């Protein structure tokens, strides 16, 4: 099995340990991968702010960087959504690029999708510990439609107990540019999320999007909470 890894800009800049966790999982399951040189950002910040020319530029760069026919795996629900759903929309009126966008869209997997549906990682021996709760991030859940895969991975961690949080599907308040445009509201929504996490009784919260997890980690810290925040890749890699 050969894949291309799209690290995402947030992982690249702030959370290289998440990328390294993905690499450890790939190594363990014998997945050959390339990390296409020159990858940058999927263009989501521009897209969500309404700057479509800039978003298209980022998309074109992505399409030329991720050529070939291997599956593209990325540890982010919202970046996978961007490539899978919004690239084809961006190039709706450009038949040639639309074809390229659709070809790439058809190859994209969000990490938990790939781990569960392709590698069947959840059927292997994984270990974990403590009480784990899960934040179901918005684009992953609502646009990409990934709901079961992350839970299957958590359930597979022997020794860990899954505890649901109230309103797991409610937005954490990150919203990309939203957190910069309306920071006070973003923080208030994140604080509600932190309260839900604390109420779950978990000692670890996990999810599939570094943006949301970053926002959640900040909100938990402000509450003085000791709940640990881990990307699903880190949880799985630790349990190998």
């Amino acid at each position, binding site marked *: 099995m050969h894949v291309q890894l799209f*690290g995402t*800009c947030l*992982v*690249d*800049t*702030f*959370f*290289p340990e*998440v*990328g*390294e966790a993905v690499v450890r999982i790939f190594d363990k399951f014998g997945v050959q991968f390339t*990390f296409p*040189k*020159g*990858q*940058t*950002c999927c*263009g989501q*910040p*521009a*897209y*969500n*702010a*309404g*700057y*479509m*020319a*800039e*978003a298209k*530029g*980022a998309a074109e*760069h992505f399409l030329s960087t991720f050529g070939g026919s291997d599956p593209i795996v990325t540890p982010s629900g919202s970046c996978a959504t961007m490539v899978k759903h919004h690239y084809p929309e961006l190039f709706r009126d450009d038949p040639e690029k639309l074809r390229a966008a659709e070809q790439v869209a058809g190859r994209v997997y969000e990490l938990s999708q790939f781990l569960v549906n392709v590698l069947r990682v959840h059927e292997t021996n994984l270990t974990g510990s403590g009480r784990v709760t899960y934040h179901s991030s*918005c*684009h992953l859940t*609502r*646009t990409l439609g990934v709901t079961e895969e992350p839970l299957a991975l958590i359930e597979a961690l022997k020794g860990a107990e899954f505890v649901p949080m109230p309103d797991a599907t*409610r*937005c954490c*308040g*990150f*919203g*990309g*540019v*939203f*957190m*910069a*445009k*309306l*920071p*006070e*509201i*973003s*923080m*208030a*929504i994140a604080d*509600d999320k932190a309260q839900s996490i604390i109420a779950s009784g978990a000692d670890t919260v996990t999810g599939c999007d570094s943006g949301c997890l*970053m*926002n959640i*980690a*900040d909100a938990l810290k402000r509450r003085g909470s000791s709940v640990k925040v881990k990307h699903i890749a880190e949880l799985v890699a630790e349990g190998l």
Partner: protein
Amino acid sequence: MNHQTSLDFRANAAGAIKDDALRQAMRNATDTIGTKRTNAMEGVDFSALREKASAIRMEVLDNLPAYLERFTTQAAKAGASVHRAADAGSANAIIAGILKSNNVRMVAKGKSMISEETHLNAHLEQEGFEVVETDLGEYIIQLAGETPSHILVPAIHKNRQQVGRLFTEKLGVDYSEDPQVLTKIARKALREKFLTADAGISGANFAIAESGSLVLFTNEGNGRMVTSVPPLHIAILSIEKILPSLADLPTFMRLLPRSATGQMLTSYVSILTGNRKEGDATGARELHIVLLDNGRSEIVKGDCREMLKCIRCGACMNVCPVYRTVGGHAYGWTYPGPMGIVLTTLLTGMAASHPLVDASTLCGACNDACPVKVPLQEMILKQRVRRVAEGFSPPAVSMGMRLFGAAAKSPLLFSFGERLAGWFWLLLRRVGGENVVGRLPRPAKSPFSRRMP
């Protein structure tokens, strides 16, 4: 167009975020409605039902002029006078004119968001009429001198203690915070108004083209009082509220109350066809219907036409994390929440309303909740694109986005940007603010890409 307050969402919301009573009231109310909605949807094929409802609404929008013509003819045949108002000012003038020619002094009003859109009450009061809101929530905010903060639950931002104090202050009654006692106080005060009002003004949830009927979904009974006790009834509604025929109504009877208040059905569903005739037991002797356009004829031709499918259930605001946090007044105009962002920018123009388009995390909860499949998330994004195209995005944001666009296309520039951010992190924190950059972790010493072979 009039604006009640500024549309500077961030400034408007600043007070709300610090208002613990408001935030708790919003949490309680939206959670309660959310639970009731989930329960009411059990055993209902929501996805099939909303597909059907959406198709009916699109059919109307695709043929709006013809349906309006049909409705006007049929309503007139049934004995109503139908008026077309191009904008808010002419709607208000038409209504004031009707009231004057009938020597009206006091008006009992049922709930109507369209009358909020036209600022009808203020206009009528200026013209010397006494206007009394009879929906309990509307009555509360009228006493408080406020505007609705939710399209169905106007006083959603208030708790019962605040209502108790308001009643004591304005009505001179003993303090109580028991909802039943408070409701009885309001009912006593309002009964007298119903019986002495010279005219009733209401909105309408739907207008039926085939029969010329108006349909009202209500819970408190005040809607029936307003439309049938006074000798004169004026209904004000916007042109897109039409349904082709009564046969289409059951779909919306199943969807609207469930989506709105989590009820299987509202306490009352009134179908009013024409004025009261000889031998009729109830009804106003004179019925006027004012159809407000206010820009909708243009919207229906554009790429945001699907917004006009909206049936005003409020489900999108009830599930919206932003609305839940700041309440409706922060949106600054008539309609709050996701539908409010889109409608306000469409109806008032981007120049006045552009800060509103930021008021969404684009989480998509509204899309899932909408009973007529308005793609709200996409429409909010469309307004953001429009803002950029029309030049209302702040210059600093545009510059930042140009830089971002350049870096996203150039790996060299991108990794240079990453390094810069790392080197100047403390400076960035100061410039970018504690609440923005201060919430991000420090960039890693070595980015992931440089750890890759």
